[in-house]
C-alpha cells in the first residue's frame, strides 16, 4: 500500500512543490487582501489565464525539443488577421457561422504555415531556432503592421463575443479551450511517438537520429504544432477583444518562457511536463490578480513576477542540494 503510494508520488516532486507554493500564495492573499477569496477573483483569473496559457503551450513544445519560438505572439496576430479578413469578406457583422468557421480554419492554416517554415529551416538548414524564430517574428510583425497600417481590425458578428466572454455550466469558455488544449498536449507529449521523440531529440538530436527517429520530421512537426497553438491563442484574442491588432499580447512572449521554466521545464530541452507548466501559469496569474486587488500597480506586479521566478530558481537549487546530501 505504502509502496504503491510512494510509486505514485515518485517523479511528482515538481507538481507537489508547485501545489505547496500555490497554497502559500492563496493563504498569503487570503489573509492580506479581504476581497481575494471571492468568486469574482477566480472568475477574472479564469478569463485572463487562457491567452497566456495557450501561448505558453505554444512555447513549451519548441523548448522541449531544445529550441525556442519567439514568433508565437505575432503568429497569433497574423492568424487573427487571416480570420478577420475572411469574416470581413464574408459580410463583416452580418457574417454567418459558416464564414466564421472558415475564418477559424484559415487562422489555423496560417499558424501552421508560419510554424512550418520555421520548422523546415531549423530541421533542414540546422540554423539556431532563436535566430530563425526571431527572423519570423520580425517578418510577421512587419507584414501585419503593413497590412493593417498599425490600426485595429474590427466589425465581427455579435455571436463571436460569446466565445470570448461566455460560460458553460459557469466555466468560462476560454478556460475550457485552454483545458482541452492542455489535455491534448499532455497526451501528445506523454503518450505519443511524436512526444517521445521530441523529448529524446531535445536531449540529444544526433543520438536520437542514430536510433532511427526521423528527427527532421519531428522538428518540423514541433514548430507546426507550436504555430497552430499560437493561432488558437490568436483566435481567442480576436473573440475577447472583438478586434485584431498587431502587437497585441507582445508582452506575453517572455512570460511564456518564464512560465515554462517555473513549471520545471529544462531550459536546454528534453525535460518538462504540461501539467506542471499549467500549474505554474495558474500561480503566476493568481499572484498578478492578488497584487491587483491589493491595489499594487500593474507594472509592479510584473516586477514581482521576476523576483518570484528568481526566488523559485534559488529555492530549487537549495532543494536539490539538500536532497543530494540526504542519505539514500
Amino acid at each position, binding site marked *: 500500500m505504502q509502496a504503491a503510494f510512494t510509486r505514485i508520488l515518485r517523479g511528482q516532486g515538481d507538481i507537489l512543490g508547485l501545489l505547496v507554493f500555490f497554497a502559500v500564495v492563496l493563504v498569503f492573499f487570503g489573509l492580506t487582501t479581504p476581497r481575494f477569496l471571492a468568486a469574482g477573483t477566480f472568475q477574472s483569473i479564469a478569463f485572463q489565464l487562457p491567452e497566456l496559457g495557450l501561448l505558453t503551450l505554444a512555447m513549451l513544445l519548441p523548448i522541449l525539443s531544445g529550441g525556442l519560438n519567439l514568433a508565437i505572439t505575432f503568429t497569433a496576430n497574423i492568424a487573427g488577421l487571416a480570420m478577420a479578413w475572411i469574416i470581413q469578406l464574408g459580410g463583416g457583422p452580418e457574417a454567418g457561422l459558416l464564414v466564421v468557421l472558415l475564418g477559424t480554419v484559415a487562422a489555423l492554416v496560417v499558424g501552421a504555415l508560419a510554424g512550418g517554415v520555421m520548422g523546415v529551416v531549423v530541421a533542414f538548414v540546422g540554423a539556431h531556432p532563436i535566430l530563425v524564430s526571431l527572423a519570423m517574428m520580425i517578418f510577421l510583425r512587419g507584414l501585419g503592421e503593413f497590412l493593417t497600417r498599425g490600426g485595429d481590425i474590427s466589425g465581427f458578428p455579435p455571436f463571436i463575443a460569446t466565445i470570448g466572454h461566455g460560460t458553460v455550466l459557469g466555466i468560462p469558455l476560454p478556460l475550457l479551450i485552454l483545458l482541452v488544449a492542455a489535455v491534448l498536449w499532455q*497526451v501528445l507529449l506523454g*503518450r505519443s511517438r511524436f512526444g517521445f521523440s521530441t523529448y529524446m531529440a531535445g*536531449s540529444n538530436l544526433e*543520438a536520437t*537520429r542514430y536510433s*532511427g527517429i*526521423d528527427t527532421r520530421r519531428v522538428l518540423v512537426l514541433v514548430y507546426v504544432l507550436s504555430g497552430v497553438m499560437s493561432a488558437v491563442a490568436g483566435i481567442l484574442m480576436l473573440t475577447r477583444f472583438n478586434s485584431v491588432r498587431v502587437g497585441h499580447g507582445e508582452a506575453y512572449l517572455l512570460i511564456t518562457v518564464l512560465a515554462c521554466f517555473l513549471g520545471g521545464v529544462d531550459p536546454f530541452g*528534453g525535460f518538462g511536463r504540461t501539467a506542471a507548466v499549467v500549474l505554474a501559469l495558474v500561480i503566476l496569474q493568481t499572484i498578478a490578480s492578488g497584487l491587483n486587488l491589493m491595489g499594487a500597480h500593474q507594472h509592479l506586479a510584473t516586477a514581482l513576477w521576476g523576483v518570484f521566478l528568481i526566488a523559485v530558481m534559488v529555492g530549487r537549487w537549495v532543494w536539490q542540494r539538500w536532497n543530494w546530501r540526504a542519505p539514500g
Partner: protein
Amino acid sequence: MAAGDVAGGDAARHVLAVEHVSKVFGGVRALVDVDFDVLEGEVHCLAGENGCGKSTLIKIVSGVHAPEPGAVLRFAGERVEGLTPVTARRLGIQVIWQDLALFPEMTVAENIAFEANLGGRPRWVDYRAMRRTASRVLERLGVALPTGRPLRELGIAQRQVVAIARALVAEARLVFMDEPTASLTQAETRALFEVVHRLKADGIATVFVSHRLAEVLEIAERVTVLRDGRKVGVFPAGELTQNRLAELMTGEAHEAVVRARDLTAAPVVLEVDGLARGGEYEDISFRLHAGEILGVTGLLGAGRTEVAATLFGLTAPDRGGMRLDGRDLRLGSNRDAIRAGIAYVSEDRLSLGLVQPQSISRNVAITVLDRLLGFFGLLDPARERRLVGDWVDRLRIRIGRPEDAVATLSGGNQQRVVLAKWLATEPRLLILDSPTVGVDIGARAGIFQIVRELAAEGLAILMISDEIPELYHNADRILHMRAGRLVGEFQPGEAPIEAIEAAVHA
C-alpha cells in the same frame, strides 16, 4: 610490502611512501587502508579498473584530497602532514591528468614555462626567458618541438610532451601520468616511453596509470594493483603476464582462448562488393556469414567507421553494392537500414549511442516505438515496462530503476543498454564499433560473452576494434584496413597475434 620496510633504512630512496591511506566519500569507501610507495627514478604502474581508487590515491598524494586520519605520508623520507596542492608541488609531485590542462591558444614555450616565470618581480613577462627555459627542458627530454607555435597546432602526442616538460620545469621528482597513451599510436607511444626513460636517467620517478596491460608490463618495473579501493599487492612487472594482471585487477580468472570457427559454409548474410566512397574508403569487398563474428581492425583513420556508417545508411557509397540476405541494399537513411535488419552500436556511446540524460527505459524503447503502441495509437507504458524488463533480464543489465538516467550507469552497463536497444529491433546484422571503449576489463568479458551468444543464435556480427587481442580471442576472422583499403585477412589461431599486431602497426 610490510610497513616496516618503508620506514626502514632505505627510506631515503623512497621519493614517496604512504601507509594506511583511507578515504570515504559520502559513505562510500573509495580507499581502504592502502600502502603505496615509489622509489627514486622508478617507473611504477598503478593498475586497476575504473572506480578502484586510483584517482583518489593520486589526488591524496598530490594534496587535492585529505586522507582520513591515521594515514602516514612520507616524501623522500620526511613525514608531511596537512598536504595541500601547493606543498605537494613544492615536494616535487606533478600530476599530468588525461586532459593535460594546457592552454591551446598559448605557444609551446608559454605552456612549458609560464608557471616558472610568474610571480617574480618586476611583473613583466619575459618571453625570451620563457623560450630559453622551454628549449632547455625539451633538449633534456631529447625532443624537438616548435616552441613559438601555438599549442593547438600540435598533435596529442606532442602536447603530452609539453605537459611533461612543464612538470620538469617545476622541478618534479615524481610525475603521475593518467592514461597517457590512450590516444597515441604505437609509434607515438614508443616516443613517449623514450621520454620516460630519459626521466628515469635523471632520477625522476614516473607513475603510469594505464589500462593497456601490454604497455604496463613493458614500461613498468613494479606494478601496484588496486581493486575496490583496496591494495591487492605490489608486483615486479617481470613476474606478471597480461592474463595474471587482468585477474588481479578484476579478481576473476581470465582464460585467453581462441574461439575462431570456420563458418564459410554458413549462409551469407552480408555481401559487400567493390564499395567505395571518395576520400573515405576504396574497393571494399567481403562476405559475412550467419553466426559469424567478423573483426575489422586498423589504425584510427583507416576508414573502418566510415564503412560502418555506409552500411548503416548514414552515408551513401559512390560505387559498389551491398546485399543483405541476397537482396540489394538501397539505403536512403539509417531508418532504411534499421528496417532492413541492420543495427549499429556506435563507438561514441556518450554522444551518439545513447541519449545520456534520458531514462534507461526510454533509451531501450526508442528503436521499437512501433511495437509499443496500444489504444488509439498511443504508447502503452505497460508494454514499454515489459520490453525493458525483458532486456534488462536477458542481458543481465544491473540497473536501479528503469526511470533512472542512463548516464548513472557504468560503462559496461551502458553498453548493455545499447545492445538491448538494438537487439530489440531483431536485426540480421549487428555492427559493433569499438564496443569496449570506456568499459572495464571485467565488464568487457561480459559484453563479449553476450556477443558470442548472439552469434551462436545466428546473428551476423561485424566487430570493429583497435584492441587486437579482443578480436583475436573473440572473432572468427579478422580483416585489416589501412588507408581506406582492405589489405589483409587473418584467421585467429592460424596466424599468431604478434603477426597481426605487427602488420597493423607496421
